[in-house]
Every structure is written in C-alpha cells, then in structure tokens.
C-alpha cells in the first residue's frame, strides 16, 4: 500500500525542462538515464528531483511543463465537470508535479492561481470517485472499469472503497467456509484449520 510520500517519489522521476545557469560538459550516467551536459542558458530536460536540487542551489530556472497553464487547466476543469467519466489528465502525476513545482518561491508565474486550478480539478475528480464508489457498493456489481484515475487518487480512494468491499464480501461469503464459532475463513490452510478447531474447543469448555 503506497502512501503520498511514495507517490511523490514516483512523481519526482518525471521530466521537466530547466534552464541552467552554469556550464558543465560532463554527463552524469545513472541507471534511470543520463543527465547533462549543461550549458548556461540552453534548456535541458532532467528529472524533477535534479531540477529541485539545482534550483535550491540557485543553479537553474525551472520551466513549467506545457500543461501547467491557467487556460489549459481551466478548460480541463470544464471538461472534467461536463463528463460523467474521468477524463485523461495531462500527466499521470499532475497533482504531485504541481505540488513539487509550485512551491512558494517557484519560478513559475501565477503559482497560486495554478495551484487553485489544480486543486479544483482534484476536488471534482475525488468527489466523482467517491460518488462512483458509493454507486458501485450499492449496485453490487462484480467489477467496474475506471480509466484515467491517477495514482494519488487511487491512494486516496483505497481505504474508503476496498475496506468496505472487503467487509461486504466477508459478510456474504458462503456458509460452508465458516465454522459456527468464528467468522474467520477455515480450511484455507492447515494452520488456520488447527486454529479454528483449537478455538472451538477453547470456547466450548
């Protein structure tokens, strides 16, 4: 089960364009790919974690990804509101990237307006996810197909939906798998069998 910090870590692998303020012809070879060479003033694509580190040392300027644009996001919000289904997001980690790039001292203009736009999209999508989870739970279907949910949204939805589905399943699980004394499933392994027979003897004493 992933948490937000781990998803943020994954988001940091996404690439972003930076404009370096220094020149270094050496190339850094890493498992995930090569970084560099850097030439002052010439845009260069690096993972976000490199960009953040260089930015902290005042050695580069981060360029906003194309989709991190007020008009585009507002269009996206309208599209998301109009659709019954989830629409495709410009990035699998839109929330994570926005959170990483739009910190208080960000290079990107209108950071607070962008943040608000992203938050609006997030709210619409999460409300939609919750409503459809509830419908699914009521409908009692066996499967549901959802496209374009991002990892962070899944992470947010998981405890609400999966635990409830699990509880529901356990309640309706067939009779023969249960001993009369315990709601745990017997017979899945010899260990649990001996456990449940031990518990029957314990409780009938």
């Amino acid at each position, binding site marked *: 089960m992933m948490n937000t*910090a781990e998803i*943020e870590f994954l988001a940091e692998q996404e690439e972003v364009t930076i404009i370096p303020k220094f020149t270094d012809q050496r190339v850094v070879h890493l498992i995930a790919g090569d970084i560099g060479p850097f030439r002052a003033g010439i845009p260069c694509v690096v993972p976000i974690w490199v960009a953040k580190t260089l930015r902290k040392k005042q050695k580069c300027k981060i360029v906003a990804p194309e989709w991190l644009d007020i008009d585009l996001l507002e269009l996206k919000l309208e599209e998301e509101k109009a659709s019954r289904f989830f629409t495709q997001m410009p990035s699998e980690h839109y929330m994570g990237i926005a959170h990483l790039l739009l910190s208080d001292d960000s290079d990107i203009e209108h950071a607070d307006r962008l943040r608000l736009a992203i938050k609006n999209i997030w709210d619409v999508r999460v409300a939609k996810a919750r409503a459809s989870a509830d419908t699914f739970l009521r409908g009692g279907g066996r499967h549901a197909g959802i496209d374009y949910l991002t990892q962070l949204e899944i992470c947010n939805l998981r405890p609400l939906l999966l635990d409830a589905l699990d509880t529901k399943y356990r309640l309706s699980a067939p009779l023969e798998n*249960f001993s009369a004394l315990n709601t745990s499933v017997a017979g899945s392994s010899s260990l649990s069998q001996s456990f449940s027979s031990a518990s029957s003897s314990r409780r009938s004493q």
Partner: protein
Amino acid sequence: MSLFGKRNHYFSLNDILASQERVPISFGTPVSYLGELDASSEGNALPAGTTLELSYWLVASLYQEDGVGIDLPKQYKQAWRDILAADAKVVNLQRLCKYFYEFGKLVSLIRIRDHQDIIELLIQTLVDRHRELTSWAVHSCKRDNEFLEKLEDIERELSKRATAAERDLSNWLQHDGGRIRKAELVNAHDRLVASTRAFT
C-alpha cells in the same frame, strides 16, 4: 491486509467479544445440572420451558441438541429490520449491538432458516451507512464525535483507516509529506546479511 482477516485470528479480542453477545434460547426439555445458568431457578436442573439469554459461544454448541430452540436476537428481528430499512444512517448501532455485523454473521450460522435474511440486512445496513461514514471520515477536521458514537466496531475501524489516509494527504499538501522508509522486507534482508557476516 484485509480488515476481517486481521481481526479474526485466534487471539482476536474483537472476535472473542463478538461471540460474547447474547442469544435468546429456550429449552423444551428439563436440563439437569445446568440450574446455575438461570439465577432465578431453584435446584440443580433447568425446568422445561425455560427461556434464557446465553452467550453466543455457549449457544453455538447447544443449538443442534434436541429440544433446544433458538430465537433471533432483537436487533435482527423484523421490527429492527424495518427500522434499519427505513433509515440505517440515524440508528445508533453502538448502543444497539457493539458488534452488529460480526455477531450477525455468527447468528446467521446457527439460524440457517434466516441466514439469507440476516446477511442481506447486514449488507444493506453497511452500504446505507457507508456514504455517511466516508463523508464524516473525510471532513473529520470538524470533529463531530456525535457521529462516531453511533458507529459499530467494524465501522469505527473503517472510519479510522479512511481518516488516516485523508490526514496523510492533507499533511503532504501542507508540508512535504513524511519520510520514505525502507520496506520491512529490506530491513529483514539487511539484518540477515549482517548476521551471516557476523558468523563467518
């Protein structure tokens, strides 16, 4: 790990406590030596026609005997079924039965006739209350304990997990999230490597 899976191991307190809930039972024949089960009875034996409320774990080992009749606990009877069907959200399950779902599942196992009805009641109640539960868990910044007090044991655990996920998210949005720790598997491997090194 699933909620039920974790709850129902051998030493699970919730599971043991759920099987302590009382079930009405009536004896059609006299039962010798069980007089002490009924505080109001005199003598050693339970007379025929006695009606008692005994713990589930005792009833479960008696229900197949001749002359023993089992009644449904009141919360699974028609009257409460109607109330729960009308609006499950407002019912105080904590007061009605602390282990409503788990105990219901147990009772359904010894009342084969009502098995399907009880299971349907449990699922319908869970589904009806779930929406309220999630919206409470998500907006729990305004701590509304009145609602928490209405929740039954499993529901409390559900809401606790939902609240924890929500808190994780809002912490991450406000600060920089927590630290990523090594997986337990990696830790175990490291320890193993260290201990083999120490012995060679």
